[in-house]
């Protein structure tokens, strides 16, 4: 691979703590990211099995610009297909979700079942020497599942999902409340007016200074830690602390915790390049994110309860998830506003700089305290290498 498509070339600073702002706003960088990252050897979570609980359920989504179709067949098996008719390539299913046993392309009436087999087609013997139904199933990207979370990669050369997750399977389970036995509660979907990397760099966990609600509730974070690895993934786990004696809210159920064990009650996980999962109080949220251009990112918050929740716990999770997080949520509405400002600011020259927790400006950090922003540095180094951006030569003695 070469960098000829990116002109002038992006030159990455020597300091590990700096990120060039231009990468957030350059159209040519974005096109190259689609090729190297979204079509590259990464794995993308696109759905949780509990979003398709019944036979015949389907969901459509995108990875980068590529449309995908997820189905549950009559034997309860999950499948992922390219959402494109095997004949002339038209988008096969246009709805975001639903339940059906057959997908028919209206153009020439080719019809596929939930396993992707071509089961109907008006071609008659003699219409074509090249045709047989068996030769034209829906084509599929590689797919794998962990704790019910469905991952795909569009790259044949991608490593196994286990190699991609690099030991983070347990952390994924923690965020889901122990394992993948979830029940879907619903979605918040919104558009961020920001580059996808602004989301990648700032969501899931950031300094609580932004959130006035925490200050007004006198709500301090519990003792916890951040972690990150060279594969670009990072996360946060902490004891859940609860606000005491708050007087802000008339209905305190918004910040009530009924989940029992506080020890890992607050955790988040961010997988390179874009997926985030957050468990806070009694909310369990998986955040499916996809770029829609260099300056637009679509964010689908999917919220879940646990399979064994009783009706009262389900009601509590629904009421808490609805109002705490998301594009209208008490502690996250302002995130979207901040991402937008970061994006607009990226049109100025120079670097974004990481400070808190930096011990050596030129080295990859290894340990992080709870509120360190140095934790983001590892995923930027992974990004830089994937994109083939060379570092400036000179390194001071």
């Amino acid at each position, binding site marked *: 691979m070469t960098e000829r498509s990116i002109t002038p070339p992006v030159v990455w600073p020597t300091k590990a703590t700096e990120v060039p702002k231009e990468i957030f706003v350059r159209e040519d960088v974005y096109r190259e990211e689609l090729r190297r990252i979204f079509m590259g050897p990464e794995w993308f979570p696109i759905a949780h099995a509990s979003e398709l609980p019944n036979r015949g359920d389907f969901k459509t989504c995108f990875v980068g610009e590529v449309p995908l179709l997820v189905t549950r067949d009559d034997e309860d098996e999950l499948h992922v297909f390219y959402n494109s008719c095997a004949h002339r390539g038209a988008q096969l299913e246009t709805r*975001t*979700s639903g339940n059906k046993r057959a997908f028919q392309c209206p153009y020439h009436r080719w019809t596929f079942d939930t396993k992707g087999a071509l089961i109907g087609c008006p071609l008659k013997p003699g219409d074509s020497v090249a045709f047989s139904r068996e030769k034209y199933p829906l084509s599929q990207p590689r797919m794998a599942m962990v704790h019910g979370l469905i991952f795909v990669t569009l790259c044949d050369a991608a490593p196994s999902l286990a190699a991609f997750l690099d030991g983070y399977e347990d952390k994924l389970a923690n965020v889901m409340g122990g394992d993948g036995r979830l029940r*879907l*509660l*619903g*979605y*918040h*979907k*919104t*558009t961020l*007016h920001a580059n996808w990397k602004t989301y990648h760099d700032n969501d899931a966990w950031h300094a609580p200074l*932004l959130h*006035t*609600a925490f200050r*007004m509730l006198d709500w301090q974070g519990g003792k916890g830690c951040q972690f990150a690895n060279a594969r670009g993934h990072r996360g946060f786990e902490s004891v859940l602390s609860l606000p005491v004696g708050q007087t*802000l*809210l*008339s*209905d305190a159920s*918004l910040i009530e915790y009924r989940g029992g064990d506080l020890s890992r009650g607050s955790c988040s996980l961010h997988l390179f390049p874009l997926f985030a999962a957050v468990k806070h109080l009694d909310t369990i949220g998986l955040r499916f994110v996809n770029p829609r251009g260099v300056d637009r990112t*679509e964010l*689908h918050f999917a*919220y879940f309860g646990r399979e064994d929740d009783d009706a009262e716990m*389900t009601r509590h999770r*629904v*009421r808490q*998830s*609805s*109002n705490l997080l*998301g*594009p*209208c949520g*008490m502690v996250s*509405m*302002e995130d*979207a*506003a*901040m991402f*937008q*400002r970061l994006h*607009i600011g990226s049109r100025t020259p120079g670097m974004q700089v990481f400070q808190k927790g930096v011990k050596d400006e030129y080295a990859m950090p290894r340990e992080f305290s709870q509120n360190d922003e140095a934790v983001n540095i590892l995923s930027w180094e992974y990004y830089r290498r994937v994109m083939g951006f060379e570092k400036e030569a000179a390194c001071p003695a």
Partner: protein
Amino acid sequence: MPGVSLDDLRRIDELQVRYLDALDRKNMAAWAGTFAEEAQYICTTAENEDAGLPLALMMDDCRGRIEDRVKFVEKVWAGTFQDYQTRHFVQRLACTAARAGLYSVRSNFAVAFTRSDTGESSILAAGVYDDLVDLSGGQALFQSKRVVVDSPVLPHYVVYPL
């Protein structure tokens, strides 16, 4: 609207105008004042609704939560967001008497918004209002307002109720 007097329709429409005027003026106390003492405000998407999913974008299902939303806008989020100006447009579609003094009202709505940072006007949300309006007291009030947004994906974060 058979069975509903013109005077009742006038009072219902006046309540709707009071509601949208409160929001377009960003007067959250006046917004909360359009609801009865025991009332609910729920805003969800047609996607969640059609799939039978209970999650909402805003679930203020008791008086306390309606009052808390006033605090979110006026106190919690103050200074953290780029403001925008809304213009609500509401068209009553149907009105039926649920029981004495209580009316079920369905309306189309659209909310245009103009961002303060870009100056661009576009549509923030369109959908339907399903309301229960209480006319038994001196002033018409919402006992319930259920907002169902047509688009599954909001084009922008939402500060004020819809």
